[in-house]
């Protein structure tokens, strides 16, 4: 950033993200006040909901600016300044109000278990931060999380890029990444994602503190929020996720806050509170705007709302039934309209751009641009198992392997432990002895719903997609562990020592795993980042070759099942993801004609087994057709690095 040495740049980036989060929180607090929700929440809740709503507000504004074709740094800075001006006073007032709570939180660290847990949380967060501050070289970031914002910035507009089947996915987080990239730093973009991990943990911890902890009980209950956060953040999988711009934690934080507001709306008042229900719906809409899967939990909460209304109606007398009938529609609308309105923004945009609101998904039903049965853009995304009972055992086997049994994996030339560690799921076995409170039941129902659905559908996707389930598991597990520990001194000793040992070992392991990153993150020499990329991106030499040896108007055709556009230093077209757009054809001449039409000058080939979950190993629908094209139209290799080879198109 600003040509500074990495360490100094990171200091500026951390200050910048703090400022940006502050602006977002201020804007979110204004939204809460406008919707007259703020008085219903504690100061901590206002700050957490304000953060999420602020992120949503900032994203929608950037989307608007981008759709208008005004994506220039001064314009976005102007938007940020307006948000800052509007939100400054509410933010300062809320922070002043929060000062005693912060002091209490600091005082609570005098309790030794809290101090220990705070150290665990701090070390886990710092370890993830050290990994997050190296130059991004992770697959999904390079393929679309940053590749699309880079294109938006280059074009000064948010357009549809039909060569990328991610182009029309909901992109609320990518809008924030666009802000980071516009400010000149992809690390600011990653820090936005990083902050959502902290937001998710903080939301669940506050839920635990306010709704689950026994206020006048055993002193160990004071450790519940930090224990929850420690279990969640120390899980190796989560440390792995927080290093990149993955959006799983953004979805988890939105869903957790949706559950939180839903519970406050339906359970803590004599009648369902419409405004809190609306807040839950807004969080649900934001969850959907992060990821399509983000509709699952808000959908389940919607069904729960209907069930609650029906139950109250059945149990009530005639007067009560009349009252419930009168408020039912208002409640359903208060919850459903925000989800439809916020989620609808993306669906409408997709429909206008491609004719399919969820392009390229459901192309066989809804059709849409560049979709045909012979050239389905979803092939390389993989298949999902059908809604069959047989999917359950395979789903369970996958999840067991991914959460508990998986060996460390080599990813981007690093070795990562990407299971959930020994504590997160095992702590759930403490729950049978816990007191079952309504918020705990809600957390269990929500986690079970997503988990059961995931058995059918996500068993070929990343285990990261279960971030919300793991967050709720950490919440329930922490509650269960303390419930069991307060029963007797022997239980407290047994649970306390095993939990402390597990957390210590995991954190030690995580801290030691930062070693390969330290020399880059804390470097004072700018060349350290180049060296990092050379060591961790097999295709980096090709990128350097392209930058040095091709004209600025060269256009690269990335023939790769997982292309990495963010680092390609020239305009590019993804060749494989949407075959109909990029001209893939059994006739090499027709294909070549389309490449000429797209202005392609070079072809970057990644020779490897295609990654298409659900298909047989080695499955490649276009191998032979590409070989025919290559034989006729590709020149001799210009450079080969790892499995990547660059050719000139003849």
């Amino acid at each position, binding site marked *: 950033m600003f040509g500074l040495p990495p360490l100094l740049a990171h200091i500026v980036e951390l200050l910048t993200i703090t400022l940006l989060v502050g602006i977002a929180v201020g804007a979110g607090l204004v939204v809460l006040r406008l919707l007259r929700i703020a008085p219903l929440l504690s100061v901590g809740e206002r700050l957490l909901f304000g953060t999420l709503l602020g992120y949503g507000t900032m994203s929608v504004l950037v989307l608007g600016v981008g759709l208008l074709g005004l994506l220039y740094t001064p314009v976005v800075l102007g938007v940020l300044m307006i948000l800052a001006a509007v939100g400054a006073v509410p933010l300062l007032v809320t922070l002043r109000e929060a000062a005693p709570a912060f002091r209490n939180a600091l005082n609570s660290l005098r309790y030794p278990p809290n101090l220990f847990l705070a150290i665990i949380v701090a070390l886990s967060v710092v370890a993830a931060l050290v990994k997050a501050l190296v130059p991004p070289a992770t697959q999904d970031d390079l393929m679309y999380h940053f590749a699309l914002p880079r294109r938006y910035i280059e074009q000064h507009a948010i357009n549809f890029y039909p060569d990328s089947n991610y182009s029309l996915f909901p992109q609320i987080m990518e809008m924030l990444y666009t802000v980071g990239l516009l400010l000149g730093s992809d690390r600011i973009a990653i820090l936005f994602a990083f902050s959502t991990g902290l937001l998710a943990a903080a939301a669940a911890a506050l839920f635990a503190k306010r709704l689950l902890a026994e206020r006048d009980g055993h002193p160990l209950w004071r450790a519940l929020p930090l224990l929850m956060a420690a279990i969640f953040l120390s899980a190796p999988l989560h440390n792995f996720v927080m290093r990149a711009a993955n959006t799983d934690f953004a979805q988890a934080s939105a869903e957790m806050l949706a559950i939180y507001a839903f519970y406050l709306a339906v359970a803590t008042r004599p009648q369902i509170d419409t405004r809190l229900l609306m807040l839950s719906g807004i969080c649900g809409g934001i969850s959907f705007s992060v990821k399509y899967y983000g509709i699952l939990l808000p959908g389940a909460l919607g069904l729960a709302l209907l069930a609650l209304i029906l139950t109250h109606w059945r149990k009530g007398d005639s007067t009560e039934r009349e009252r419930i009938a009168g408020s039912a529609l208002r409640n359903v609308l208060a919850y459903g309209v925000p989800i439809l309105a916020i989620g609808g923004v993306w669906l409408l945009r997709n429909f206008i751009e491609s004719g399919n609101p969820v392009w390229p998904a459901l192309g066989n039903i809804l059709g849409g641009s560049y979709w045909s049965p012979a050239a389905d853009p979803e092939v390389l995304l993989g298949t999902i198992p059908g809604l069959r009972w047989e999917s359950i055992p395979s789903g369970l086997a996958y999840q067991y392997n991914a959460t508990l049994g998986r060996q460390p994996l080599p990813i981007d030339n690093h070795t990562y432990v990407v299971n959930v560690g*020994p504590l997160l799921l*095992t*702590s759930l076995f403490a729950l049978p002895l816990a007191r079952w409170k309504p918020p705990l039941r809600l957390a269990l129902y929500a986690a079970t719903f997503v988990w059961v659905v995931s058995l059918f559908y996500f068993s070929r996707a990343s285990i990261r997609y279960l971030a919300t389930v793991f967050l709720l598991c950490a919440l329930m597990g922490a509650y269960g562990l303390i419930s069991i520990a*307060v029963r007797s001194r*022997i239980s407290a000793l047994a649970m306390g020592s095993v939990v402390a040992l597990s957390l210590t*070992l995991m954190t030690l392991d995580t801290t030691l795993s930062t070693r390969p990153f330290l020399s880059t993150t804390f470097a004072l020499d700018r060349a350290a980042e180049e060296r990092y990329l050379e060591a961790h991106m097999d295709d980096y030499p090709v990128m350097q070759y392209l930058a040095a040896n091709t004209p600025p108007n060269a256009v690269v055709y990335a023939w790769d099942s997982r292309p990495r556009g963010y680092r390609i230093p020239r305009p590019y077209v993804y060749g494989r993801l949407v075959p109909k757009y990029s001209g893939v054809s059994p006739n090499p001449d027709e294909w070549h004609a389309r490449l000429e039409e797209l202005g392609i000058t070079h072809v970057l080939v990644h020779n490897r087994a295609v990654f298409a979950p659900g298909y047989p190993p080695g499955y490649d629908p276009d191998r032979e057709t590409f070989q025919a094209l290559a034989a006729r139209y590709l020149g001799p290799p210009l450079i080969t690095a790892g499995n990547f080879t660059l050719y000139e198109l003849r």
Partner: protein
Amino acid sequence: MLLNYQQQGHGADSSTQGQEEHLRSFAALRMTEGEMVPQHRLSRIHRPTRASHITFHVSRFSATFQQPMKISLTTIYSLLLALFMLFMLYQYAFQWKNLPDLGRLFG
């Protein structure tokens, strides 16, 4: 008096467990004095009413333990859970560092 004792909260130790222990001993004391303890309060003191302890007659094996040892089912469960968590910790920490995979013992 029982109520007052409960309300005092035993000074610094106001834990539920501590209170229950004191209440239990206090109730036993009152019983020996021939005074009735209200039934609702007894049920609170001795909850849950189902068998919640296992008694080990260790004195059979050793003269050192003259009194039968009582251990609650909750404590037994928590000890078993702690053992299971230790096993999972072992699997996590050592399985991939070329130490024996204890998971194989269970097939």
